């Protein structure tokens, strides 16, 4: 039976995973955009107290299997210290118990070659493997470029919603673009399109850094479009934890070590996940003169809950306002919007008192 590959949704990075596997000759089933409906089945079949990303993943899988006939699931196991390392293991058992006849590949450093062989990746000649990885990497950088430009443009746009329109258009085009040459051309087009959005050049938006757990930061349904909301409130957003950073740290462990050293006065030990990253990034933001930090984490996230008191301490000592949001299936968009508005008001007040 031909493989129909799917994977969990992860914000705009869908485009990257899809390109990677399509270029290796697989039929890819992109998971439908995460929604209240898609997570229902995830909530029903996941352990009650497991972290929210796990439940969202399971919802994505079930929807892809039932609605689009996916039969092969690709997942990652970074073998870290938090629960994430067991996602694949337990998710596979849940799907087995539900009676789905699927293959589940949870990739880690030890099994990567074996899994790739089983998937038939090595039927591709080496040049095709390299080309596929290269295209995926270029698409990843363009996804992040589009996001960066949207965060810079949105708080300054004269016509509300224009940034969003440009962003959707180019994410769609990016998804449909296949060759490295066309991708290079697309990069120029993207920069041009965003610079053509009419902006108020005199506006000086507040700079807000986002730290926290990588999945909720990427997946817009989970964080209820916090970055868009902040942009609409006139704030320029920067996201600390990006997939490209993870790849860079993976390829260069020394850069990772140096990065963590920044957290030293506040936290020396790793606490799993991106806990230590949150501390280090918040200190970076303090150093770079950001106006505030928003901390996004799933409810009960072990690493992020551990570091929350430290982030609060940094907030006090560096005089950097912090808003820590705990996200799960019950998070309401209105509630988050209210808190973000109050947060921005607080920062604006603080700024006007300081001048």
């Amino acid at each position, binding site marked *: 039976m031909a493989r129909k590959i799917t994977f969990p949704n992860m914000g705009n990075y869908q485009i990257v995973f899809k390109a990677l596997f399509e270029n290796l000759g697989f039929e890819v089933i992109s998971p439908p955009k995460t929604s209240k409906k898609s997570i229902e089945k995830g909530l029903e079949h996941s352990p009650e*107290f*497991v972290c929210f990303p796990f439940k969202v993943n399971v919802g994505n899988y079930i929807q892809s299997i039932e609605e689009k006939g996916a039969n092969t699931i690709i997942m990652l196991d970074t073998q870290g210290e938090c629960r994430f390392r*067991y996602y694949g*293991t*337990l998710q596979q058992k849940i799907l087995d118990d539900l009676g789905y006849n699927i293959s589940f590949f949870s990739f880690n450093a030890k099994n990567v070659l074996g899994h790739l062989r089983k998937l038939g990746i090595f039927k591709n000649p080496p040049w095709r493997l390299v080309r596929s990885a290269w295209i995926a990497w270029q698409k990843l950088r363009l996804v992040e470029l589009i996001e960066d430009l949207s965060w810079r443009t949105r708080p300054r746009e004269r016509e509300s919603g224009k940034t969003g329109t440009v962003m959707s258009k180019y994410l769609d085009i990016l998804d449909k673009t296949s060759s490295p040459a066309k991708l290079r051309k697309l990069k120029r087009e993207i920069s041009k399109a965003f610079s053509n959005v009419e902006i108020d050049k005199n506006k000086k938006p507040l700079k807000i850094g986002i730290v926290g757990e990588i999945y909720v930061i990427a997946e817009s349904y989970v964080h209820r479009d916090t970055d868009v909301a902040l942009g609409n409130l006139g704030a320029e957003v920067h996201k600390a934890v990006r997939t490209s950073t993870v790849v860079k740290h993976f390829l260069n462990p020394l850069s990772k070590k140096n990065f963590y050293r920044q957290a030293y006065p*506040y936290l020396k030990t790793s606490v799993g*996940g991106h806990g230590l990253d949150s501390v280090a990034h918040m200190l970076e933001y303090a150093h770079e003169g950001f106006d505030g930090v928003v901390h996004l984490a799933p409810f009960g996230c*072990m690493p992020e809950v*551990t570091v929350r008191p430290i982030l*609060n301490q940094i907030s006090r000592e560096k005089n950097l306002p912090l808003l820590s949001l705990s996200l799960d299936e019950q998070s309401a968009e209105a509630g988050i919007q209210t808190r973000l508005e109050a947060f921005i008001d607080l920062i604006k007040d603080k700024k006007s008192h300081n001048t």
Partner: protein
Amino acid sequence: MWENFFKELGFRVETSGQTNRKILEEGVGLSENEACLSCKVFNGHLSALVNKNPKLDYIFIPLYKSLRRGYKSCPKFFALAEIAKTIFSHLPPILNPEINFTKEKLDRTLYKFGLGLNKSKAKKATLFALHTLEKYQKDLERQYFQKLKSKKPKIVLISHPYNIHDNFINLNITKKLKDLGVEAITIDSIPYKEQIFYSGWDFMDEMIGQVREVADQDIKGAIQLSTFNCGCDSILIGLIEREFRKAKTPYMSLIIDEHTGDAGIQTRLEAFVDTLNL
């Protein structure tokens, strides 16, 4: 073990005592809302210890990094001391040795730690500590084999050691089970053959090994006791309940938080034990 270690080094040792309502409430008040109950209890104990003894020279908060070679402990253990410094404004100096069986064996860790505190007594203290630990583990094992011989229906109680041996937090579950006429075998007493099942957390493969070992014995049921927001258990429960499903042994999980009432647990235990006698 630690108490004997420090006493042998010439220290006077003060402990925070058994968990009680005051310790729990104090810990809840000091900790993050979403922290696991066990971390809250830890902070409560730290608070009680510091309040009872204003003139401490040191507080001992070991960093349990790895209790089995190639594995890691729960990541909540790693930053306990550093987070304590954030929560408490004034703490005596913290002794924070890293216990890491992936890096080195316990005897080396104890000896090096002891040398830093009292050079002349370090070796003796290390040997005494190891002897205490070995005796404790042998005692547990002896209890296990004794309980296996019991004529009463046997249930295995699965939980982390700091829950199994905290009768306030576990709502006195071992006594409750005893009163219901059941022999409760605690998972930490079960000897097992070290194997790799899932790798990762040290307690994960240890418990799976213990569960598989005891499943071969005449066990009538399994109760897994967890505490609110234990991240590890949210995964562990999923794996352990499947082990018992495969062994066709009745299984129940209980989640305890700071509001859990005695009566509620009693009812669930009675109902569970009733189903076993059918």
